[in-house]
């Protein structure tokens, strides 16, 4: 099972802009946002801004990198 990432900017109302749309079999399943310096120790990590369907989870972890985020998203989908 593969995911496709598409770089995008998201208007989060903060400095967190750099983002990825995450597609699974041509469906948008998640939006990941890279946390900016304003998040201190979490800066540079990836945040699940939105998850759709089975990827929707209000208690999702913050991911150290995009690989970790994709692994988690795939886990939700299977």
């Amino acid at each position, binding site marked *: 099972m593969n995911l496709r990432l598409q770089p995008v900017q998201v208007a989060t*109302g*903060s400095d*967190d802009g750099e983002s990825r749309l995450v597609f699974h079999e041509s469906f948008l399943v998640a939006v990941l946002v890279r946390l900016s310096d304003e*998040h201190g120790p*979490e800066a540079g990590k990836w945040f699940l801004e939105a998850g759709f369907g089975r990827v929707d989870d209000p*208690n999702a972890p913050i991911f150290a990198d995009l690989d970790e985020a994709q692994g988690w998203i795939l886990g939700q989908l299977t």
Partner: protein
Amino acid sequence: MTSLDEQPSVLLTEEFPLVGMDLSDSLEQAGYRVLGPATTAAEALSLLEKETPTLAVIGIAFRDTLCTALVHALRQRGVAFLVHSGYRQDDLLADAFRDVPWIIKPAAPEDVVSVLDELSLAAAPASQEAAVDMPARLVEQNAVRANPLIRKLESFAPLSDEDRTLLEQICESPRLVPPHTDLGREGDKPDGVFLVLSGFACRHKLRANGSRQINAYLLPGDLCDLDVALLEEMDHTITTLSACKVVRLAPELVADLLTHHPRIARALRKSQLVDEATLREWLMNVGRRSAIERLAHLFCEVLLRLRAAGLVPGTSCELPLTQVDLADTTGITSVHVNRSLRELRRRGLIELEGGRLKILDYAGLQALAEFRANYLHLGDRAAA
């Protein structure tokens, strides 16, 4: 206003030098003069020979055989102390330390300072000279420290002198509880009604994955369900968020208040209605407001409640909460809390730093949150 000599002193014992230095810095910043840090009980005892401190922190292992001697020496001199230990209080020596505030290592230095502040307030005599025994920043706080329960209940129903005396008696010997301590856990048999006299506590529920929803704050003067004794088991957990002074009211005492003291009973029932109304408002918050509106609403509410308890004269207050606490209260992620706090600051509505909330533009904050204080039924007590 306070010279070095008048500063309260803390005998700091800490077996790990790095932790000791860190703690020492935090204590000095908070207005304490530090004796030590001593890394062994022997060292602490020799410091104690030279000077009797106002307070002490025991951060050395109990296997240090002189530790018992140190505790004894502190007790003999009437020095209040807290224990900062890798062990839980239940694990050892529980009897000897039943009344001692106990903080589990590793704790944030702020937590140690806040428990020490509580000790300092509790140890200080209720007079002008109190200034000598506590950091300057606490003196003002202490001056407005009328009994928050009485202040709150009086606004709900007129009380007689006899009622006030009775309530004072009930609040006479509060227990100092460190932050993050469960007072009652979901599933436990209810063990009386908890009354918070200082600090922040909360009611919350946990999911199996550990995620937490805070359902209510218990602020000074607040107590949990009056009739909880009717239930077989607790359906939620009550935990301190900061260091708290807490009184446990036995079910018989609550029954007596409700049966034989009609004015107090009326005020307590009204207070319970306000708790329910507040819960409805919080439900509104998590269901129908945006992240930034939820925080704005919460800040308006907390300020008004602290003002009503007579604890805050102006528009700034202690807010001993982490971003995770705020996230779990408002049902959003800590990322959203961080973004929203920044946005509130950027709009010039609040400042939040070092556990202190300053509302810069109350009207603006109120408008943003569509905050209406009607559900608190404060009358004119806390008009901001």
